[in-house]
Each structure stands twice: as C-alpha cells, then as structure tokens.
C-alpha cells in the first residue's frame, strides 16, 4: 500500500497526539458544557433535570443583570480594541523610527506582558489605592487622588488602563515585525515622489501591515470579550454590579449566588457564539483589505 494514495492517513497519524489532547481537553468539555446548558444542574447535586433551551431564554429575556454585563462588555471591547491597537501601532512606529536603543524600549514596553495578568492587576490595585493618593499629596498632580474604583466610570477607566498597559506590548511586537516586513524600496520611492510622512504611512505602510492588524484586532477582540482577571482583581465587579463583565457574571452565577451551574453554562455558550460570529465577520472583512507588496 502506498502512502501517496492516502496522504490523510499519515497526516492524521502525525497530528494524532495533538488531536487527542485537543479532543479530550477542549472538544469533549465543550460538548459537555453544551449539554449542561440544557439542564438545571447546580454543580453539586447528583440529580438534575433536562430543561431544554429555557436557560437561554431566561438569560436573554429576564435577566437584566446579564444584559447589563453584555452591554458593558461590548463597551469595554470597543474601547480596548481601538485603544490597544492604536497605542501598540504608535509605539511600534516610534520604536522603529529610532536607530539606537530599539531593543531597550522594545523590552521595557513588552515587560508588563511577562507578568501574570492577575499579579499585575493586584499591583495596580495597590497603585490606585495607596500610591496615587500619596503621589497627589507630595506632588501637584491632585487629579491622582480620587476614587479609582469607587464610581462606575472611574472603575471602567481603571480596568481599561490596566488592560492596555498589560496588552499593548504584545501587540507592539507583532506590529514591529510587520513594519520590518515593509519593503524599503516602496518607502523610498514614495519619499522621492514627494509623499508626506502621513501619506507615506496611510498609503504605503498601513496597507502593508494590514495582515498584522487583522491578527491583532482578532486577538484583542477575542481576549477582551473573555476579560475576567482584571475585573475580578481590581473591582470584583463593583461597586455594586456596575463593572460585572460577562465572564464574571457567568462565574458568579455558577460558583456563587444560587450555584445555577446549568444556567451559567448557557450564558457561557451565548458568549461563545457571540465571539465566534463577531470574530468571523471581523476576519472576513479585514482579509479583504489586505494587499501584497
């Protein structure tokens, strides 16, 4: 029997270990999760009932808290996707424009990404509660002394600051790689033709780093929809429920409150489908804008 006639067999064999892990640790739990989302299991008792899609209906029609967290998460996603990518791209451009000390700045800005997000959030919580008021006291920066997580708006701002600080460095590395891939001759040709810095960026560089933008927007969309640690460690969803993002809402529903595990899983499934649809649309749209040099 020749291997050429059935290439899929050896392909399958070589990817079998990965596939196996993927199936055990991802596919199977996902299917299990979907099944539990159709039940009223509380995560503890041995018996539970099959309740069809009533969990989904309840989440979307009669759970104002969930709808609030859905809208709040959307707001957060929009702000994070724009801010994080814009800042990362600017940083990448700045660093690429330097001749010396490139590596130093690259390392410094990437550094926050190497600390676990939970730890860095705890560090920020300390900065907000202890350092900022003291700084305000000893310097003239009086705006620093305020309730950073005391009001819904300030809490939102604080989570955005921490997320951007933590994530921008990672995206920056991707953008730097993309910028280095832009052919020099194109840039030079544009300069000779008299293009301004802005036009050079807009018409030459931007289209050529579009693949990187596709990836980065995809990554930020994906991660900001699933944001949990920052909110959990910084505000715990508070004050009240004002900063409760979907993932935290799901967690609370399943592991605290009334331990409605089935119901929480249904909410998680809704989040899952939402992310799939939105990222699918995003990738398709962005792909169309990509060009090759």
């Amino acid at each position, binding site marked *: 029997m020749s291997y050429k006639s059935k290439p899929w067999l050896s392909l399958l064999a070589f990817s079998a*270990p990965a596939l196996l892990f993927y199936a055990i640790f991802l596919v199977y739990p996902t299917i299990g999760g979907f099944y539990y989302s159709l039940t009223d299991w509380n995560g*503890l008792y041995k018996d539970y009932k099959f309740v069809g899609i009533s969990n989904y209906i309840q989440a979307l029609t009669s759970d104002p808290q969930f709808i609030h967290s859905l809208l709040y998460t959307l707001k957060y996603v929009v702000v994070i996707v724009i801010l994080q990518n814009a800042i990362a791209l600017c940083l990448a451009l700045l660093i690429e424009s330097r001749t010396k000390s490139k590596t130093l700045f690259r390392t410094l800005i990437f550094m926050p990404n190497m600390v676990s997000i939970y730890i860095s959030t705890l560090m920020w919580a300390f900065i907000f*509660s202890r350092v900022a008021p003291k700084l305000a006291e000893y310097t003239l920066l009086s705006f620093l002394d305020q309730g950073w997580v005391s009001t819904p708006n300030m809490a939102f701002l604080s989570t955005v600051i921490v997320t951007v600080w933590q994530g921008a460095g990672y995206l920056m590395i991707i953008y730097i790689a993309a910028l280095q891939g832009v052919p020099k001759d194109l840039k030079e040709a544009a300069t000779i033709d008299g293009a301004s810095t802005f036009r050079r960026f807009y018409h030459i560089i931007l289209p050529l780093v579009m693949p990187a933008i596709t990836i980065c927007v995809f990554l930020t969309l994906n991660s900001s929809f699933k944001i949990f640690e920052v909110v959990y460690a910084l505000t715990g969803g*508070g004050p009240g*429920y004002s900063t409760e993002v979907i993932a935290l809402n799901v967690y609370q529903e399943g592991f605290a409150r009334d331990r*409605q595990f089935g119901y929480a899983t249904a909410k998680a499934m809704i989040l899952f489908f939402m992310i799939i649809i939105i990222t699918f649309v995003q990738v398709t749209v962005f792909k169309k804008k990509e060009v090759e040099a």
Partner: protein
Amino acid sequence: MKKTLKLMAVSTLVPALIAGCSSGSGNSSGSKNDGEQGSVRKVKLSIMLPLAGRFKDQFDGYLKQFAAKELAEKNIEVSYNLELPSDENLLPTRLASGDAPDIYSFNFATKGADFVKGGYAADLSNEPFVAKLTDSMREASKIDGKIYGVPMESFSWSYLYNKDIFEANNVTPPQTLSELKALAEKLKGNNVTPFVLAYKDSFVAGWPFFLSMQSIVNTKLPTWWDDMTTDKASFKDLKDNGLFDVVDVINANGNSNALELSAEDGIADFANGKAAMFVTGPWYSDSILKVNPNFNLGLGALPINDDPQSTKVVIAITTTLTAYPDGPNKDVALDFLNYILDDQDSSAFFESLKFNKVATNQTIKSFPWDEDAQNIVDAGQGFLGLTLPVAADQDKDKLAQAYYAKSISQDQYVDSVNKTWKKSVGAGK
C-alpha cells in the same frame, strides 16, 4: 498499514505515560512488609479542608496523634492525604464527580444546608461526640433537627475596637445608636477616624447590613425569616424597622476611599491605629495581631437603634467537619470526628487552632476579645445568626457597595435584595 498502527499506538500511549508519571501520591503510606502483627488493617483517609491553609500544621499534628491512637487501640494503620485548597469550588466539584474525600469541612453558616441537601454529609446525630457538645452549640449546629458535622470554629461577633484608642479618648462601647453617634463625634473632634471602611471586598460592605438585619429580625420580627419563604414578608419590613440607621452612621463616620481598600488593607489600617473601630469579627484577630503584636483588641456589640436590648452580638458557626456518607473508610473517618472532641487531646488542639470552646469537656484559655464577647452573650445579648440564601447574601453585599457609593437609593436596595431572596427561595424548592 503496520506503521500507521504503530503510530496510533504510540500516540495513545504517550498521554497514558504522562498521566502515569503524575499520579505518584504525595503522602506515602509507609507500607511495611507483611509478616508482623498478622492483621494490621491499612486505611488511607483523604481529607479536604477548603480555605483552611492556615490550619495545616495543627491538623497534621492532630492526625498523627490520631493515627498513633488508632494503631494502638484498633490495630488500624492510618495514613492520610490532607488537602487544604484555597479554592472553595474544588470540593463541590470533587463531590459531584464521585471523587469525594472521606472527611471534609464546610462553612456551616453559609454552605451547610447545601451539602446536606445534596446528600453529601453523613447523619452524625448518634455519634458519641454529640453528647459532649455544649447545649447551645448542639442546638445551633442542627439542620432539620439532625447533626451533620462536628462544629469546630464558632464566633460571637459584631465589631472590633481599639481599646487603647478608646481609653485615650475616654470613651466606652456605646449601648445605643445615639451614644454611637456621640462617640463618633467625640472621636472626630479628637482627630480620630471612628470606623475603618474597607469596602473593596463586597462582603465587608455587607457586614453592617448583616448585623442590622439580624438584630432587627431577632428582636422585632421573629417570624420574618420563615415568612420570606412563604412570601408573607418583604425586605421592606426591615427598612421600616430602621435597617439603614446604623449603616448610615457607620458610612458617614469612616475613612474616605473605602471602595479602594480590600479587607487586608482594612485590617492593616485598623491594626496600625488609623481608626478606632472595624465592623468585623474576631476571625481577623490573628491577622490584626500579626500586623501589630501589641494591639489591644476589644469586641463590642453594635447598637442598631436606641433600644439597648437590640445591641447584640451574632453567634456564627463556621468550620464544621463531616464525613462522606458512602466512603469506604467511613468507620475510621467517624473515629477521627469523635477524636476531635476527645477528652484528653481536644483542648490542646482547639487552643492551638485558637478556636473557642464548643464542648463541655474542653478547657480552653480564651482571648480577651472572646471574653468580651462571652460577657455580652452571658448577659443574654447573643443570638444565633440566621443563614441568608446565598444569592440574596451576595446581593446584599454588592448593593451595600453601591449604596455606599450613593449610586442606588434605599428603596432600590430593598427591592433588589427582596427580589433575589424570593427568587432564591423559590429556586431552592
């Protein structure tokens, strides 16, 4: 084809190998060769005490004592695997997946009924230890008239105060709300912050509400709790009886930036004398003394209105140990539970854990703040706190933050908690 088969076999064996490597258990049972003492029975107990990492050494020591006793008296060689996860959710997961530990602990005040309802706690009503419990403890640790665990940790609590600050400002614990207000004014006049407010953790924000509601229900609305289940009462009844009075006094007389400070921050501030009072229980006494070993800690009853009869401490049973009803080593597990209240060894064990006395056969040196609490209880001003439905409990805490931040009104607070409570009770069946 053979090659493919081999590949497949390898790919399935590799995970098996990896899994096999990791399953070496932490605690070797020290197996001896057969031949001596013919019929030594070997038992390995698995014990899970969630959120009890700070008790590891004490339990390790006591389990070793127990193993020696069991070997001497019953010829059973006991080894054990003690797990103290910092995540509460590991235990329910283990129970639900059929991988139950032989012995585990739960928080009686908040989670007790859950485990009993799920059928995960053995009925221990006829065990010898039950007779040793003090009468009040025995009554307090019943669920539907039966005992499902050994109550180990219990607290009488209301608020903690800094005795040195009280002395320096020449004030004593207030008996009425008016006295509390006057005390707060006096302290503020002397440039002392009356209350530590550390509301970043919502449960801290909920404590003043908890004390206020428990005392109102205990003194004025004895059937309220049951009436909530039958929908005859409403959370608004509490508001009408002054639920918010003491909360407003506390919130108005504390530090600013309360929502930035976690419970740990609050403990540190209180221990360093930045404020005179902290609405919390003596479960933080250890942490406070760790920050400031010379701290002079006192415990008082929080007045909630101008009737001194309502100024009470709440009694709560927390850490409770129970056995899994269908465990293979249930008899040994029960031996251990009984050994917890052993006539000889129990007192030293409880003292090392800094737990209060729960049984008549214990003599335990108590701490000054526990004596404060005991005096209040002895004066008839202590009562067992009732358990809120978990969702309502959390709602109460979360909205306490929002109420402090002034983003919701009293009516919104009452409406929301009422709704959550009713839904919870309905959902609980």
